[in-house]
């Protein structure tokens, strides 16, 4: 991957993190909407790290199998998050 692309990914991660804080403390969202938005942003950051920092986007097909493990981890968290919101 090019350095420029890597820096673009880093900028996205920084902006997404700041956005999470803004969503949490600046805008008067309902707590359910707030938590869902933060959850989705966090998952997008995790996906960016897995695909680019871990370079799974560029690996041979079968190594991408390990992406499934990572996505399982993320999906598992998403489900728990949703369950907590419903609760």
């Amino acid at each position, binding site marked *: *991957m090019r*350095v420029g692309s*890597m*820096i673009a*990914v*880093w900028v996205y*991660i*920084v902006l997404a*993190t*700041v956005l*999470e*804080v803004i969503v*949490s*403390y600046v805008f008067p969202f309902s*707590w359910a909407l*707030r*938590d869902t938005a*933060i*959850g989705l942003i*966090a998952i997008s*950051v*995790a996906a960016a*790290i*897995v695909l*680019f*920092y*871990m370079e799974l986007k560029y690996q*041979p097909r*079968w*190594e991408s*199998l*390990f992406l499934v*493990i*990572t996505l*399982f*981890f993320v999906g*598992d*968290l998403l489900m*728990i*998050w949703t*369950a*907590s919101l419903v*609760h």
Partner: protein
Amino acid sequence: MQPMSVEDRLDAIEKRLTDIEKHLGVRKPQASWLKSWLLTTDHKQVGMLYFVTAFYFLFIGGILALLMRTQLAYPESTLLTSAAYNQAVSMHGLIMVLWFLSPLGAAFANYFVPLQIGAKDVAFPRFNAFSYWMYAFGGIVALTGFFVPGGAAAAGWTNYAPLSSKLFLPGGGETLIALGLLMLWGSLTMGGVNLIATIISMRAPGMTWIKVPTFTWFTLVTQLLLLFSVPSIFSGTLALIVDRSLGSLFFVSSGGSSILWDHMWWFFGHPEVYVVILPGLGAAAEIISVFSGRPLYAKKAILLSLIFGMLPFSFAIYGHHMFLTGINALEREIFTVNTEINTLPSGMIVLCFAATMIGGAVKFKTPMLMALGSIATFVIGGVSGVFDSSLFLDVQFRGTYQVVSHFHYIMVGTAEFALFGAIYYWMPKWTGRMYNEAVGKLHFVLSFVFFNILFFPMNFLLDMPRRIYTYAPATGWGPLNYIETIGAWGFALAQILLLYVMIEMATFGKRCGRNPWGVNSPEWTGDVESYVNNYPAVYSTASSSFDGGEPVHSLTPLNSSPLVISAGLAMAFMGLVVSLPLLLVGIVVGVWGIATWFRDDLYGLFKVPEEPIGERWPFNQMSHVRVGVWLALAGEMILFTAIIGSYLFIRENVPIWPLPASIHNIRLATFNTLLLFSSGMTAFLALHSIRNGNRNGLVGWLGATFALAGSFLSIKIIEWFQLLSMNPPFTIASGLPGSTYYFMTGIHAVHIMVGLAFMVFLITKGIHNGFSKTNHDAVTYFTLYWAFVDIVWVFLFPLLYLI
């Protein structure tokens, strides 16, 4: 011609001897006998160490069992006090399941898996030795509990909360068992990664998946179960230790409490049943095939049952241990149905074993008898287990001796008879000597008869609670308990015969030749007593063995780090409970061991023999190290999933949770988060530099990563001190918000520290020109690890600071 000097002659003789040794495949003695065993990293020697140590723990666990049974032989017996009985029953269960049965399977796996697939050794020999020493020293830490005030662990083998809390068990024994278990979990995880990577990536050319021997397949599934189940209980045990030592409230408050522990324990505990029985069943499969004189019937069906049945369903049914804990009705129904479905793969395997024998020329030698005994007890235990899987019947049976009978038929009968069969079957390969068949058969008959005298009557004690240390004569339980105690002593004494045959096979038994059973299976290729050599050649389908290769030295170098680190950790853990000086000595020893490990890597002092590339599908383009790194990360992901899942479980059960902004400095935490995420980018830039051959860039960007990570950790520590100095202080013991915050950030901080140590190693090696454009695997693996540490914080940050 010039006459040769004495020195030249000696050199020539030395060279000639080396050639002869090379030709004969005899290892040149390099170290003393004791040193060669203590520092070995060879898979066969490590396997033997597991074997001997497992029997040491069997002896201790067996003594405890006899004490319990003798106490229960008569009503109102006074042999043991209630406290002593509780310790005996708790330690018996833990030792037998975790320090005897599982490791005995690991002993065979270590020895035979590389031989069966044609590898020179396991994927990570040094980690293999480390796994063994963590297991052995973990057991020592656990047993130390008998010698501290308050005695050993006494909350049952499940360590149920809140009984395991300091409130009910204030002595050091419970803390020591938790610390010993922590070492064991580390051992199991490393062992799992190692064996899985070995089987996936180190098969000899021609050894395709379908040709992989059955025992190795069973081992693969066993290790996958461990890899995915242990992280749950690892985090639970860590929380228990923190509860007991630092006063956190995970298992002693209504928010976490016993149900949380139950989930964490049984998500590991039920798959552990399969971890215990599958190696034995794998060995039984090989034995039944060999002694029936025909290939295993429907091997593909057996493998499918394993992979798509037992592997996922052993997790999907763990809740059947929690029917009476208050989990909701829908969950109970799902676990009931799943458990009953799970009988199908077990039934498939038993039927295939039976079909293998039908029409075969069955020889009832001792290994075969043991395998059949294992299958018989598996069926009996399995049938009684079907009753327990029913929600309605389980409500009646739970906590009675019927359940004790059920799980001993599975754990002892199935696993132990099969593994005893494996000893009779494979030990002649180890030693080149045969056992006395008559003694072997007598051992089987006595063991099988007394085993059933011991455990079958328990099915008639449906009204006897299983966790009592004595009972009144009027209960009428005395006669059956007396019979069971006779069975226990008979079963124990019968094992003297096993000891005899093992000594016989090790020392004075008849020489038995290369392949005494006439087996057409890969591990029997080569000479007997060849524990120093493996045969990594091309696998021949025609002969089902390895052809075309001379014996090859397989011994990996000796290394002291695994032993030293494990010993240091054990001393530090015992010191936590017993004395501060021991803790300090342990830390020094442990750090010394880690330093020597890094030193050996830095200067290339630990070199594993090169492995020729063989079958690697589906990861043809990945090295075994890369596969191992990914597997380790997969285990880590499950660890953090369990930790974060527990946090959300607690959040759901605590009605009032303080707003994060009322406790934390959000701006500081956000800034710190950005530092960490930036370190992920600099780590990648370091990798990018060395890929382009830029060594200065590598060192520079690694230095930047170190600075960013160090800053993150420093700010985190400052944050902790600020919280501790608040009024009122926000501590780990001040409530569940504090407990969860310090626990989660603490574990993450430990990962940061590991990363910092890794970076010191990489920077040092980089400065010494240890990396190049084509040789920088360690930097790649570090980048993967560091990205993982980032991902964890992606979730911890919003959970702890934003919502």
